[in-house]
């Protein structure tokens, strides 16, 4: 039973982790994109459409990634080229995404989707307990792990990552050093969009293989919260995603087990736990300040 519960938690946490790590990169470059929910739902509908039209869920995943990235480009053009306000543009992107995805997906409602099949590692997947959990999952799970490791390496070990953090911390001096601020930020925004799209693909191809309007049901907002919660560190995003997923699943089990607490209070738990954990980790003022991208959300126009 523990194994089954853990499997459920992994499915619930994966989209949160993927979308959050993408937004983390965007924010590390100094751009605040509040449109995660909109990009995620666009990813979900594109992935479902791709999978349905080509018959291949894998191509569907690809369509989700591309759909999310292209949609984020709209945000990039407005906030980076036209320097519109990032908060308002992100919120508008969500409104647009919810409407547009509904319009695109109108003909897919009620069609059962094809579930993305797990990739089974021979031998390893036969290890009791660990095998099914870690070596018999679909590609989105492996990608979520790869993304965490990759982004962690990229941000803290690679030169480009260093440059990107420099932009996020002070775009003025980064520009003076000859780093192309706008181009890097475009790439970071599109990476965030691609990740949100992938998370959406996980929703419509793995979590619940189907398309219904508004199926992201607020998960994009949770992903946004996770980034801050993680104080912009990839591994903390991972941990946060799993804590959030676990509390949500365990409260359902607590109910089925029959404890007499009103279910609304149990449903509050993931949010309350997030706040408590946040208080604990942000108690140390210095570490949070170091990680917060100082120019987050501020407009940048190169002087000439």
């Amino acid at each position: 039973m523990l194994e089954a519960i853990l499997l459920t938690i992994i499915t619930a946490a994966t989209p949160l982790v993927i979308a959050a790590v993408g937004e983390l990169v965007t924010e590390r470059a100094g751009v605040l994109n509040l449109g995660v929910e909109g990009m995620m739902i666009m990813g979900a509908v594109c992935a479902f459409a791709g999978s349905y039209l080509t018959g291949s869920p894998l191509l569907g995943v690809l369509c989700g990634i591309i759909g999310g990235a292209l949609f984020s480009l709209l945000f990039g053009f407005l906030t980076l080229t036209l320097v519109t306000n990032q908060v308002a543009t992100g919120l508008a992107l969500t409104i647009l995404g919810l409407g547009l995805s509904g319009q695109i997906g109108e003909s897919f409602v009620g069609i059962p989707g094809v579930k993305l099949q797990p990739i089974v590692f021979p031998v390893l997947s036969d290890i009791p307990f660990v095998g099914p959990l870690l070596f018999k999952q679909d590609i989105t799970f492996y990608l979520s792990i790869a993304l965490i490791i990759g982004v962690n390496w990229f941000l803290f070990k690679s030169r480009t990552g260093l440059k990107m953090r420099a932009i996020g911390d002070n775009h003025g001096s980064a520009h003076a050093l000859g780093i192309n601020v706008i181009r890097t930020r475009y790439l970071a925004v599109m990476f965030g969009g691609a990740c949100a799209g992938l998370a959406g693909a996980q929703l419509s191809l793995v979590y619940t293989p189907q398309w219904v309007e508004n199926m992201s049901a607020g998960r994009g907002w949770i992903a946004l919260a996770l980034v801050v919660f993680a104080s912009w560190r990839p591994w903390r995003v991972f941990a946060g995603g799993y804590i959030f997923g676990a509390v949500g699943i365990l409260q359902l089990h607590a109910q089925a087990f029959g404890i007499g607490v009103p279910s609304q209070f149990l449903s509050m738990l993931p949010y309350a736990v997030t706040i408590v954990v946040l208080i604990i980790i942000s108690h140390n003022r210095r570490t949070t300040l170091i990680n917060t991208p100082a120019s987050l959300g501020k407009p940048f126009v190169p002087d000439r």
Partner: protein
Amino acid sequence: MKKLIIALAATVAALGGLSSGAQAQEKTKVCFVYVGTKTDGGWTQAHDIGRQELQKAFADKIETPYLESVPEGPDAERAIERMARSGCAMIFTTSFGFMDATVKVAEKFPKVKFEHATGFKAGPNLATYNSRFYEGRYIQGQIAAKMSKKGLAGYIASFPIPEVVMGINAFELGAKSVNPNFKLKVVWANTWFDPGKEADAAKALIDQGVDILTQHTDTTAPMQVAAERGILAFGQASDMIAAGPKTQLTAIVDTWGAYYIKRTKALLDGTWKSEQIWDGLKDGILTMAPYTNMPDDVKAMAEETEAKIKSGELHPFTGPINKQDGSAWLKAGEKADDGTLLGMNFYIEGVDDKLPK
């Protein structure tokens, strides 16, 4: 700046005026207010299918405009008033949360007929209608008791309102009529519509050992999970067989179309009266999806029960029934009255859950 806006407005107005003049306005308008989108795959979609049937039945005589995704609250009152003002002769408001808004607008527009789904406030020009979903749930309970090897089913519930509690009790009653020791586990998802959460709830129940699932939420996600885990399940609101061809035993299908046609006919004949209607299987307001994935004897039993309910021979809530704590509720042979059912806030014996208070 102001002048420019006015000039623009005038241009647009002229364009709009030109096109609207061309339209003929002879048909009777029967209007619908939806709480969700018409393609939500559940509650609202069932109403919209009913609307389409209605439109087909009276092809040239009526028009059926509708408003989607109307939030409950002040927006609802505005939406309904807009319909009344736009010349709707009859307005169906299809969510419980529209009740007070419908009452207010109905008082303002005495000539327009209003029909509110699942509420309890009526007026001279305001009728209410509802469906006896519990009749279907009773049949489902019986099937579950026959098909479950463990004598344990899982119920994904949305919110603890009487409608849902009534459904849970009816299911348990049906099951106990076959297997007196049948147990029912309940999980409250606290949502009508969140495929992810519904799937999580389904998985949690299956992990707790249930081998039959039923749901009172709107998406097919639980059906998909059941199919994946190889257990059996019941559909909700619409026939969900596509999501689980080898999984769905039957489904309660909301077939509002029959009701909408009946009421529109009355409207056109001039025989419409305000009534509080609570129709059931026999009136066709709900139907059972084909009984599938079960042996013939179980199917025969289900069909027999359905026939008995239709003929009025069987009322699911017939005593002796005890409440959850073992105290007596209905004496042998006593039938629950509609008032008690519509306000039901207690479990009957055998439900393994504490009702959220």
